[in-house]
Structure formats: C-alpha cells, structure tokens
C-alpha cells in the first residue's frame, strides 16, 4: 500500500488502490500534476468501483478531501464525475467538478474501526480522475498541500531523499518502446546485465496494444532482433495489436539478463561532471522507489527525460529553414519556416468501433461538441492528430490527450445520429497520448534533411531507412473550416538514407545514449526515421555500442573515435 498514516491524518494515493475495478492508472502526466492518478475510462459507461483498505491508527471524526479535476470546465455538466464511499457510506459531494487539479472538500466521516474501506464510484464513464484522498482530523487542509504539494506529499508519505532500493547494471535503459526493447535485447544477447524501465504494464510504447500504431520502416541490419518485437501491418487502432503484444512481451522476458521493470516510471537522473550517476524510478501503483546505477544509460523515453534531467542539450520545435538548409520550394512554411518556432508534429489518440447486431445509443455531449463541431467519424486513424503553438507536447500533454478525447467522443456522437451507424458502438479508445515529436537530444551529429537528400553514407552509418520523409501539419492552418484535430502529411520520397552513430549519443553527457524519436535530429530530420522499425534499429545499435563500451571501458563517443571498425563488425554479425 502506498500511504502512510502519521498521527491523525492519512494520505491515500488513488493509484495504490488494491482493486482498481474499471479504473485505469494514468502515469503520463506525473511531471506536470505530481502523481499517477486513477481514471474512469469507460467510453461513456460508468466503470466498476475501485476499492482499497486503509489502516487508521486512530478512530474518530475525519474530514475528507480528494484531489481531482474537471477536465472540461465550461458551461455544461462536468464530464468526469465520481463519488467517494467510506466504509460503505457514499459521501454526498460529487467530485471532478472543479477546474484544474485541486483539492476538494468531500465531507466528514466517522471512523469506528482501524480497517477502513474506501471506494471510488464513477458516475459518468467519461474519464473522471482522482489523484489522492486525504483524511484529517483537522478541519483545515494544510496550506502546503496546495502551495507546495510535492514536498508535502513526500512528507506525508514518509519519503526519504534516497530511494530505499538500489540496483546496479551494465546498462540502464529507460523507456520500453521499440527502441528500448531493441536496445535491451541487443545488449543482453552480448551478455550485458540490463535494466529496462517502462511505465506501462506492457512493452512497445506506440506499438503496444495500448496505443496500437503499427511498426513501419525497414529492418536494416537488425531484422532478427526487430522481428521479436515488431507488428504486422494491421490498420492503426486494430485489436490485432494484442497478438504482437504477446510476442513482444514474451521475447523480451525470455532474456535472463534483462531485468524488466514494468509499471516503473523514472522521475530523476543525476549527473556529475557531465556523467549520469543514477536514474531514480518509482512504481506507478505502489510508490516504491529504486535507484538504478550503471556506467552507461539509454534514453528511449521518447520525451528525452533522462537527458533533460541530466542536463543534456536538446532542441524542441522547428528550426529556421536556413539553420541546416532545409527549405522546401514546394511546401514553404509548412515544411520548414524562415523563422524558427515552437510547432512540432502532433500527438494521436487512436480509437476503434465495433459493429454489432443491435442498436446502441451514444449521448450528445455539449463538452465534446465544442471541439468536434459537425465532424462525424466512427473510427480514428493516424491523421487524428493535435498540435498547437500554445501547447507543449510534454508540458501540456494532458490537455492534448483530453482535447483528442473530446474530438473522438464528439465526432462519434455526431456519427451516431446517422441511421446507418445505429449498430456501432465504441470498442476501444486509447487513453495514452501517441506522440510523434517532442524533445530531441543533441548528439555529435544532428541528423537533418540534407543527410536524406544526399544519401550521405556516413562511415559510422548504423541505421538505414528508405521511407519517405513524412512531416505533418494541422489541416486548419490552411483551411479554417477543418477540425483542429486532423492533420495532413507532406512527403519527400527518397532512396535509402543512413543515420550515423554520432546521432545516437549525447554531445555533452558523456555516458548517455539515445534511441527513438528523441535521437539527435532536426524537425525535418525526424520526419523519416521517426517510425518504429527505424527507432528499433537505433535501439539495437546503441545496445551493441554499450557492449563495446563495456569491453574497453570507454564512453559512447570513444566507440566512434577508437573502436568503430569493431563496432560495425559486431553490427554486421546481427543479420
């Protein structure tokens, strides 16, 4: 259990509930709002109650607060409403109705025994969310809970500065998408002891059954490894993702020297003299913490968190067209702007319907109509994508996800008004943001448009790809009548191109590799290799580089400067 009772107050983290019922743990926005939370993702049908037991040291009267959020504030009923029951008694106050993440007073309860049962009761099925519940015999919520939540939370949970457990590995990989999985496999096959930290219950990131994007690109030199973790080319959002999920999880788990930390989310990385000493991670449900030490680390988080915490240089947004010479006569500002800006490709939330033999109703939702307007749809695809220049793909990811949920529910509600759609119901809506672009950590080489156009055969080429550069823009930039959640793709067709190893390690953090969309590239440079077989190649390549690093006790850069031939030979042997 993830709570501590000190004197007459108790903080219960919602994600630590023993039985989560139909609620899901959402750890995606910890860095912004402070904690994983429980969410009632019922696609319009209220989910089963989440239930837990808490030991109270002292009986008596307690005041109760809950930290929740009205995720669509406006002139309509809040979409995600829920209630709390204590020892079977439902408290009157409805939660999920206040703007922003806030503590709401729920009411008073009499605690007559030390074992207390708490339940979260969903009222709407539309993504009500609860971060934590606080019981206190004091009538007043401590000011610190509102003004300095992170510190107050640590105090209440009795957290020490250093995690209780420490583990040491040859290589610590954070992020279990295709890049992280491939890095773990290639390093483990060569005998390294590897930790793979991933904040979800299943591996694969955007390729997982939780996000359901199919893998694209070519296998390069790593077909054998990548076939252990890739997907078939089913339509994005297909339930068939689950078969590849089973294969991927089984294959990665089969390595005895890969310690897999599923449902663990890294929250800090510390560097000294530009070298990372450790990565700290927390279990997304229990709150347990582990400090991971290693001589070398891989950042395959997608958002470049390890590099960010460690002080690695990074970029975000679109460079000016003159910075790397990436202008396009054909696409102009849509491709690469004259002046740099904060625009990046957007995030997708995929969804799928089910056609049944009976009619199903779906409600009209004022809070969703506002976004969907008149758009009708019964399923999503890659072009269900959202990006806007006032929203940051990391800092505002919750708002981006929620915007997409509104777009989905609203468009489906519109489609359901059409007679021919009466038998459709929502089968699956992801609640995970499938990101395309966020932080890009800078390496010794920044991969860009010219490397693609010139097909530069770098002497340290370790990844290859022939997929067209494919960058997206929001349709409403050109046509204000288009919904703001749909995108368009621009392509630059090309023959095979190559990514150098020097784009896969940090230029200023000496023991940090990166693989995945956070590799060293420009906005346009990311356009081609951002798909998952290519990012998987990056992972496999850095896993092998870590092997050379260990063998000669050198840093990633020295693999390039001193051991390149041996490294390339090792890659050749993988086929």
């Amino acid at each position, binding site marked *: 259990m993830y709570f501590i009772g000190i004197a007459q107050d108790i903080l219960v983290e919602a994600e630590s509930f023993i039985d989560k019922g139909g609620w899901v743990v959402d750890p995606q926005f910890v860095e912004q709002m402070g904690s994983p939370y429980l969410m009632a993702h019922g696609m319009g049908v209220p989910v089963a109650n989440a239930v837990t037991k808490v030991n109270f040291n002292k009986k008596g009267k307690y005041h109760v607060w809950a930290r929740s959020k009205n995720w669509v504030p406006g002139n309509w009923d809040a979409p995600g409403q829920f209630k709390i029951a204590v020892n079977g008694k439902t408290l009157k106050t409805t939660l999920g109705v206040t703007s*922003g993440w806030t503590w709401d007073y729920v009411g008073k309860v009499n605690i007559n025994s030390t074992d207390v049962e708490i339940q979260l009761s969903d009222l709407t099925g539309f993504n009500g969310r609860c971060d934590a519940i606080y019981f206190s015999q004091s009538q007043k919520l401590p000011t610190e809970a509102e003004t300095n939540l992170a510190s107050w939370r640590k105090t209440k949970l009795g957290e020490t500065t250093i995690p209780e457990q420490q583990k040491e590995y040859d290589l610590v990989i954070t992020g279990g998408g295709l890049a992280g999985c491939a890095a773990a496999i290639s390093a483990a096959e060569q005998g390294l002891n590897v930790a793979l930290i991933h904040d979800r219950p299943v591996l694969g990131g955007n390729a997982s059954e939780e996000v359901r994007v199919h893998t694209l690109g070519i296998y390069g030199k790593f077909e054998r490894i990548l076939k252990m973790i890739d997907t078939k080319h089913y339509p994005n959002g297909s339930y068939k993702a689950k078969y590849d999920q089973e294969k991927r999880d089984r294959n990665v788990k089969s390595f005895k020297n890969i310690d897999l930390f599923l449902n663990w989310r890294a929250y800090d990385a510390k560097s000294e003299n530009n070298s990372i000493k450790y990565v700290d991670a927390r279990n997304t449900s229990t709150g347990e913490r582990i400090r991971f030490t290693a001589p070398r680390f891989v950042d395959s988080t997608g958002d470049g968190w390890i590099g960010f915490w460690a002080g690695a240089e990074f970029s975000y947004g679109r460079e000016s067209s003159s910075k790397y010479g990436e202008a396009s006569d054909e696409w102009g500002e*849509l491709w690469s702007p004259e002046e740099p*800006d904060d625009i990046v490709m957007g995030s997708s939330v995929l969804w799928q319907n089910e056609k049944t033999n009976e009619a199903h109703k779906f409600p009209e939702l004022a809070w969703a109509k506002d976004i969907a307007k008149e758009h009708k749809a019964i399923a999503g695809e890659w072009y269900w994508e959202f990006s806007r*220049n006032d929203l940051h793909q990391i800092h505002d990811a919750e708002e981006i996800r929620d915007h997409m949920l509104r777009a989905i529910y609203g468009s489906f509600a519109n489609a359901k008004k059409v007679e021919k759609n009466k038998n459709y119901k929502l089968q699956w809506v992801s609640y995970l943001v499938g990101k395309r672009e966020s932080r890009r950590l800078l390496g010794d080489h920044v991969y860009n448009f010219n490397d693609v156009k010139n097909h530069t055969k770098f002497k340290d080429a370790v990844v290859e790809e022939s997929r067209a550069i494919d960058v997206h823009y929001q349709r*409403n*930039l*050109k*046509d*204000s009548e288009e919904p703001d959640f749909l995108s368009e793709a621009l392509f630059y067709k090309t023959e095979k191109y190559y990514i150098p190893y020097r784009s896969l390690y940090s230029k200023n953090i000496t023991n940090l590799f990166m693989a995945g969309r956070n590799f060293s590239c420009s906005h346009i440079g990311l356009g081609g290799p951002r798909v998952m077989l290519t990012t998987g190649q990056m992972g496999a390549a850095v896993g092998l580089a870590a092997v050379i690093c260990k063998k000669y006790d050198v840093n990633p850069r020295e693999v390039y400067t001193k051991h390149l031939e041996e490294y390339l030979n090792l890659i050749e042997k993988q086929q």
Partner: protein
Amino acid sequence: MYKLLTFIIMLLIIMGFQDQNKPDYNPMFFSMTNEWKEIALDEPVFEFVVKSLDTTYDTQIKHQVRLLSNSEGAPRLFFSNIETSVCADGECKLANIKVYWNLLGNYVGYGMSPELPLTKFEHDHFEKEDYAKLHQLLLDDNSILKRRKMSDLIDQVPVSPSNIDSKDLDGISGATITEVKESVVKGGLYSCYTLWHIIHGEVQEKMKRYLESITSDTLNHYFLYTPYKDYQMYALKQLQKTEFKKHSIQIINIFKTTDALTKAYILKKIPSDVLSEQSITEQFYNEFPLVDINSRTLLIHRLKSANPNATEILSKYLDSMTRNQLRLYLKYLSDNPEHLNNTSKTNLIKASENKRFTYGFLIKVFFKNY
C-alpha cells in the same frame, strides 16, 4: 498503309490543337476570378513531355505551354491544350483537356472540347458532377494520388464485377481503395490519375523556372495586391522587411482575410518598427478575437515589439485566450508593469471575477504576486 494514314491524321489533329494561335479561352471550371477573359496576348513559352502511364503503349507526346497576358502585356496565366491517352488494361481512349495554371504553376481550371468528353469505366462519359469532382481533385496539390503508383490504388483482392455495382469499379482488376474513392470520380480513376500527374508533374517545375525568368517588381506588386492566397504568400516571401511599411495597408488586409499559415508568416516577419506604429498595432490586435488560436499566440509573443496600447487592447479579449496564452500575457505584464494601465487593470479584475471565465484564477494569482 491504312494504319499509317490514321496515325498521320491523329498527329495532325494533335498538332492542329497546338497550333491555334489564339484558342477560345473558355474554361469550364476556374478557381480565380476572370483573368481568362482579359487575355489579349498568347505566346508559346516552353514545351513539356507527357508520358503515357500505360506500359502497353509507351508513348511520349510533347505539349506546348503558352503564357497568356492581358492587353497591357502583363502575364496572367499559363495554358496548355493537353491530349493524352487514358488507358486501362490495354484499352485506351483519347482525352483532351485545356488546362490553366496561375503564374506560380498552381492549377486553377480547365476546359473541354464538347466533342471529346472524358471517359471512365467501360468508356462511359463523365457526367456533369464528375467534371466538377475532377476540378476539385486537380486543385488538391497534395492529393493521395501524388504518392501512389497506379497499381497501389487498386485493392489487392480482386472483386468479381458481377458482385459489385460497376460504378465502384475502376478498370476490371479490383475496387479502388477507400481513401482514394473519396477523392476521385467514381469509375474514373485512370482518367483522374493520368490527368493529376500530368498537371502536377514536370510542367509545374518548368512554370516555376519560367516565372523566375520574368520576375519583376511589377509582377510582385500584382501578386501582393491580388485576392489569391498563394500569390499573396509568394509576394510576402519576396518582400524585403524594409518594404513592409510601404505596403502595410495591404498587408493588414491580407492578415484579416487569409489563412492561418499566412497570418503566422506575417506576424513572424513584420518588423518591429512597423508593428509598433499605433495605428498598425491597433489594426492587428483588434483582430485578436477573430483570428485562429495560433495567430493569437503569436500576437501575444509580439507584444514586446508592438505599441504599448496592444496590452490594453488584449485586456478586452481575455476570454478569447487559452490558458497558456493568458499565462503568457500575464507574464508579459509582470515583466513590463509600466504597460499595465488602469483600463487594463479594470478589465483583468472584471475577468477574474467572472465565474464563467475558466481561467480567472490565473489573474487572481497574478494580482496576488503583483
């Protein structure tokens, strides 16, 4: 002998089309205003080659592109009378289409000879709405047809013609994939595909190069002052920052009427010494509630180069701001407290007290720390 005679007659017909000195310009569809009516001069400027997409008859026909100018000799359009064979599985039909491009090489319209209608599956003639759909397809410079091979556009699994409405079929080898279906004429995939690729092919590059050879201040001025978005954007890109002041009235007009992409370009490029003029600031910032969200963000970003009255103007439009935009605006006020006058303060307080305003709490926090 008979075949040779037929070939010569066909060749003469095609050459006859191309040799008309002044064809009767009368497009069936035209997305500009009436430029074609003003054409007084007509000169051939270059040729381009149209290759048959059908491998059975690997033909290449040269076509002439003409520059159409008005009575003052000002270039206005490119034109070509295109003859091509549209083939499906070895069966070919002649298609004739008179195509108009604007001076940037963007397709703007087409006309037809009534005696040579376009054809679709089983060589049925295009119907009236099919011609309109073709025009819409040709206007889409990023059509799905662009990046696909003809063979990719047919479903993998063959569909028996007896099991499906023939209108859903393209050729006889399969049904068109769903995504393509929406953009092409039903049963007319081959015609649509062939024509799209001719009109958006090599000829466009040649037109762009030709434009570079005739570029002039007069032409750029014309582009800037037309109502067409692509011309306006082209002209804005050519415009030196030092020229923004001279054209500020037109630039503001464009800003008020154009798409979000061009608005953003203007807001990023307009020099501070132009934006800071009070009347120009007012015209830009009074548009705040009317423009798209991305442009609003850029307006807030440009506050530091605008006239100080911009902060007061924006204080009237707080409810048009997103959460992050309001944060950005309040941050600007924190950094530049001298720009926070009494009117702005009143507007801010009013917004913070409005219970229907979601982000009022941010303003309260701002005043708490002020």
